[in-house]
């Protein structure tokens, strides 16, 4: 992991951890008749650290809570409980101008490049808006910056008078990236930033994100369901299942030495573009599908689908904590970690 170089203007701190998620919960109460005070437990007690300059990959299947967690981290949603310390400040307690100042340091790139750009604004206006909001530079400097941003992400600077519909999906995603970079953030959350794109275009965006990280010492939270993309882009990976982090490890340890049976199954499910490997590979097929986050299973919430669970027994009764297992810097929440 490279030590993050400080960009001018940010305070020098010794803390290598940029973001700490501490025991965070997010419950969405169910509305309507017969819901009886039940909640969707989208994020159900998550601890997570993101270090300066690293790319943390967050993976899991739909409904595991990864996108909700991203919205909590960027203060787009209030937490139900817990704290999120970004650069030494608990953002769950920030309001008004302080929160706005914090937002300049964290930006988000969204999945759908069609829905995340205002169709009535020109590209120039879209990129100008964050600069205006944070009163960055003079009018002339802003105009110039917009042009540099467009060049940076590989678009023609003269396109600033065009509207989003005039661009392809990949180009729009570049605009979304330029918008995120406009205010010189130190931390960017990419929520499924390439999953809506065609393969050849996705590769362009993945390469661009890597180049930008190196060039600007960015810290990334990279959320995706495509584990191959995550392995390629991340330094460390966290796996979520039904509102909880079940394993974290370095990007190669998680793949070569996974400790949690869910991680193992998830990885073995992904086909590899190599027919010879495919003939040898036997995916671990899980029983059934993800249970409802309204009423998660008792004990370890993976136990009804787990191939090695002792249930009834410890797995259906006691919730396993996230503890060190396997390699250095690797943690798993399983009573029988490493035994699958």
């Amino acid at each position, binding site marked *: 992991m490279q030590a993050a170089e400080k960009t001018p203007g940010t305070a020098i701190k010794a803390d290598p951890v940029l973001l700490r998620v501490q025991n965070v919960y997010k419950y969405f109460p169910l509305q309507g008749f017969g819901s009886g005070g039940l909640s969707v437990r989208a994020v159900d007690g998550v601890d997570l650290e993101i270090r300066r300059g690293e790319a943390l990959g967050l993976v899991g299947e739909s409904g595991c809570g990864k996108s909700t967690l991203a919205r909590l981290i960027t203060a787009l949603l209030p937490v139900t409980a817990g704290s999120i310390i970004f650069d030494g400040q608990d953002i769950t307690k920030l309001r008004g101008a302080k929160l706005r100042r914090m937002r300049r340091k964290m930006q988000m790139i969204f999945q759908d490049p069609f829905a995340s750009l205002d169709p009535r604004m020109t590209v120039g206006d879209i990129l100008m808006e964050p600069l205006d909001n944070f009163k960055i530079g003079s009018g002339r400097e802003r105009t110039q910056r917009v042009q540099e941003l467009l060049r940076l992400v590989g678009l023609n600077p003269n396109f600033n008078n065009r509207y989003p519909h005039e661009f392809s999906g990949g180009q729009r995603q570049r605009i979304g990236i330029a918008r995120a970079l406009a205010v010189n953030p130190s931390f960017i959350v990419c929520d499924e930033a390439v999953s809506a794109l065609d393969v050849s275009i*996705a590769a362009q965006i993945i390469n661009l994100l890597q180049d930008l990280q190196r060039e600007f010492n960015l810290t990334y939270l990279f959320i995706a369901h495509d584990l191959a993309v995550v392995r390629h882009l991340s330094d460390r990976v966290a796996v979520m299942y039904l509102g909880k982090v079940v394993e974290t490890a370095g990007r190669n340890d998680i793949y070569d030495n996974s400790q949690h049976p869910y991680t193992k199954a998830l990885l073995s499910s992904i086909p590899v*573009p190599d027919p010879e490997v*495919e003939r040898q590979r036997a995916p671990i097929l899980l029983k059934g599908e993800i249970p409802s986050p309204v009423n998660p299973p008792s004990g370890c919430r993976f136990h009804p689908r787990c191939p090695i669970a002792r249930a009834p027994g410890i797995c259906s009764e006691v919730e396993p904590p996230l503890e060190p297992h396997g390699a250095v810097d690797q943690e798993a929440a399983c009573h029988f970690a490493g035994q699958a």
Partner: protein
Amino acid sequence: MAETLLQLEDLRTQFFTGRGVVRAVDGVTLHVDAGETLGVVGESGCGKTITALSILRLVPEPGRIVSGRIIFRGQDVTKMDDDEIRQFRGNDVAMIFQDPMTSMNPVTKVGFQIEEAMTAHERFTERLAKGRVIELLKKVRVPAAESRVKDYPHQFSGGMRQRAMIAMGLSNEPALLIADEPTTALDVTVQAQIIQLMKQLNRELGTAMMLITHNMALVASLCQRVVVMYAGRIVEEGPVDQIFRSPQHPYTWSLLRSVPRVDEARKDRLVSIRGLPPDLLNPPPGCKFHPRCPFVVDRCKIEEPPLGEVAAEQLARCWVLMRNVKDEDVAAAKSSALSLDAAKKLKAPAGGDAGR
């Protein structure tokens, strides 16, 4: 040599839009043998789905098959009358789609929909069809099939819905099942279950399969042969092992190197194909891929290469071919595209501060 089930000969399907003619499928010749699995890969807009819809004569307006032949077991599908085509669809060739929610009727029970697919044809009597529904759901491994036949589609999860769709597709025992991105909308662990099911069904029932996808890994996992399409044309074709080991068309080569592999540590940058897929209203002259090709030569810009044999059973449409490309040119194709000069200017501290 297996029997040839389906043969497309110089198929052309065009869309007559207000802005001009879109050549969505532009001279496609391919065949599917009985019992085999053929992958058709390419990016959005390459014509893979329209090829499949053409086979069933389901091309939406303003599209039309303008020329070419579609021979299924000796019969030309393009010349069938309405009765014949109705019998052909479902009975001989069935199709399953990406999104199992929108392709099922939300207000009728799943069991009835499968039954209906059978009674629409003459192969099974109504009584026989009723009895077969549970058997079919069991075959696609829907748990508790006896009770789930009475469920509505919304009571099924995504994976179960796709299983029910496959059951419907197989209900009339077609010789060929066309699957258009059957796992794209599903979660990874569910995707693995469906892939496994499709493999088993292909083995157990001997149903030939045409898998339409953008995912090369899925092709490696499921198919014996693969056809790569670009801008309405086949650019490469051959046995899966051969194509993955030694792709000869630069487009196939780039596609294989533009996706990271989950079983490999990061070594290299991904190969990204520069630019965008061509506008089919106004395709480039010469080779359709030449504006994006890293290994382009002058001839590519003027004259379109034919689909020629490059190895045993392997065809490619290219003047250059990957085996003739030098290593340094391959390395250059992976280099950074970032405008470093723009990056430098942006890093300079911009005056002003938040909230002031």
